[in-house]
């Protein structure tokens, strides 16, 4: 019966230690990139920015989710995503290919629960761009879905206590490509999901309804969200928001001309210590703010987008292949690789 099988499995578990991130060279970060030959791959990076592993991908990735204990990464295709790959970063094996249910599309991001027994994938219904979190069990079987209460969700972030924050970008897109269908009426929102319940919803003032909420970062009860402006390009608007549960969001921006240089576009956001940063690949710069939203300074770097906290500052990656550490606004190169780093850096 089943008991014998369980007994044998137990023996096997005793004989071989469970795989861990040590088997993948103890990366601190994961990032996708396009390589010099035009192919794509997922890389593990250590704290000094050196590669710990390289796994080829079938196409361009966007972001990923790292399992909290097992050396497993889920890499999501770019929007509109038809696949996500579960990779064993230790052995390099492709463990699973996830496909969204009929009529649904992955939207580039996902997150595990704290104990790693559930994976949440950001999805939209192809027909009307309505947002959902897809739920998968620890064997990556589909077990359900939760509405995100908005259109065109992009990033999901796990907060302490398995609360999930979702950035509903607000943009409805064509089922087959990224053509934007509803810019005049778009209504982005930031939501907190507890269990299967939409616990809190934040929206922007009416005159900023064209500011798509897309990316998220969190530290010590403070959520930072990065925005992408879809309105009149001549208007200079905030691209960073800060929020605490139950309070009104605070929008932050640099002084006029410097803010204009961001070109209405923030691609990633991260919090490190007493600073929060956003990157703009279009503006070729990173902006740093205090946690209260005061502008601290700009650091320029062409096509910079990937952003993660590191000890005493931020790690950035860019389309030119650069990996830099930025401490107090001062950038220091960690390396230049023959590859174009993709939009995001995932922190383990």
């Amino acid at each position, binding site marked *: 019966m089943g008991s014998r099988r369980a007994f044998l499995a137990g023996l096997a578990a005793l004989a071989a230690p469970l795989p861990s991130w040590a088997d993948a060279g103890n990366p601190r970060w994961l990032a996708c990139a396009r390589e010099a030959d035009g192919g794509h791959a997922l890389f593990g990076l250590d704290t000094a920015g050196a590669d710990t592993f390289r796994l080829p991908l079938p196409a361009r990735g966007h972001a990923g989710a790292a399992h909290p204990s097992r050396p497993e990464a889920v890499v999501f295709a770019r929007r509109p995503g038809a696949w996500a790959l579960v990779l064993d970063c230790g052995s390099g094996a492709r463990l699973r290919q996830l496909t969204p249910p009929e009529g649904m599309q992955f939207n580039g991001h996902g997150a595990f629960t704290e104990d790693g027994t559930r994976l949440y994938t950001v999805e939209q219904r192809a027909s009307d761009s309505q947002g959902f979190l897809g739920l998968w069990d620890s064997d990556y079987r589909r077990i359900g879905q939760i509405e995100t209460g908005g259109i065109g969700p992009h990033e999901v972030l796990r907060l302490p206590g398995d609360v999930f924050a979702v950035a509903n970008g607000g943009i409805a897109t064509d089922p087959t490509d990224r053509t934007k269908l509803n810019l005049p009426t778009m209504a982005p929102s930031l939501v907190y999901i507890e269990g299967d319940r939409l616990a809190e919803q934040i929206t922007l003032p009416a005159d900023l309804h064209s500011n798509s909420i897309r990316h998220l970062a969190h530290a010590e009860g403070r959520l930072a969200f990065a925005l992408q402006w879809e309105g009149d390009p001549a208007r200079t608007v905030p691209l960073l928001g800060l929020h605490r549960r139950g309070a009104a969001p605070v929008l932050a921006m640099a002084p006029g001309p410097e803010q204009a240089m961001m070109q209405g576009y923030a691609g990633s956001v991260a919090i490190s210590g007493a600073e929060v940063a956003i990157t703009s690949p279009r503006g070729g710069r990173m902006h740093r703010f205090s946690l209260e939203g005061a502008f601290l300074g700009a650091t320029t770097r062409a096509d910079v987008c990937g952003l993660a906290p590191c000890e005493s500052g931020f790690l950035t990656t*860019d389309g030119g292949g650069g990996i830099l550490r930025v401490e107090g606004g001062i950038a*220091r190169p960690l390396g230049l690789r023959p590859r174009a780093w993709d939009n995001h850096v995932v922190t383990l």
Partner: protein
Amino acid sequence: MRLAPAVLALTLVAAPALAGVDAVLDDHVLPGTAAFAQATQALDDQAIDFCQPQDLAPLWNSAMDAWVRIGHLRLGPGEQAALTIAFWPDARSAGRRTLARMIAAQDPMGVHGDDFPQVSAAARGLYALETLLYDPDFNGYEPDSYSCTLVSVMAHDLATQAAALDAAWREKFAPELRTAGQPGNATFLSMAEAERALFTALHGGVEFDADQRLGQPMGTEDRPRPQRAENWRSGRSLRNLTLSLESLHAMATALAGHPVDAVDSAFDAAAYFSLAITDPAFQDISDPQGRLHLESLQGRVRTIGEVLISEIGTSMGIAPGFNALDGD
């Protein structure tokens, strides 16, 4: 010892990039920013004592000439400086509206040099000066009037910005470009990155000429926008385009390290087509013949951009921004 020349040759081949970056800086950028600082200083000096249009127009034109020759250098210190030195295009006439409001209210910010840098970018720099010197709604002011002081303060602010731009290029950004790839240089991690940054400015300058200098007045076929032409009140629209293309041509040659036949031909063709333009302010855009000439010229300018990519950009491994274009 007979090996020595061969070794030297190999070294040079291994570092061909350096010549391009240095040549662009030494022959194009730094003389250009110095000339702009000088021209605006001359305008400032004159505006201390004389503020009326007839006193300042020639010097403003010299400053404008000098700016157009470097206006495409929107990298490093030029990136932000361009916003407050050259606020154009200004589709909503923010400059005129702000100036009208300031003058009507006799806004103290407009006549105090220390406060002036805080006024809206649209009311600063070369284009705001054009409004005061050439726009009949603004240029009838008397000596010792509010507008007279405003012009002096504006000219001084411009000269201050130009001097800062020149200094920032010389002291900080040019050295960063020259030391690309050296340890500690976090702006350019390789010489190829420095070349790419300069090429992007070069190509962006050509696009600006096609899309803005020509595209703005062209508007759409149903709705031409002659009053959106750059500097139409001072009649400089064509002159700006011509000077800009001459300057971009020189920069392309410096960056390539030698004249490139296809590049020369593309610039020559645009110069030839510009001879057909009869109205130097592009105000004949509503006339079918005038439109045809501008459209033809715009086509030639776009061709320059394509030729630059194929002849110079490709050899530098130029690719459009990977993330900038992703939009997610």
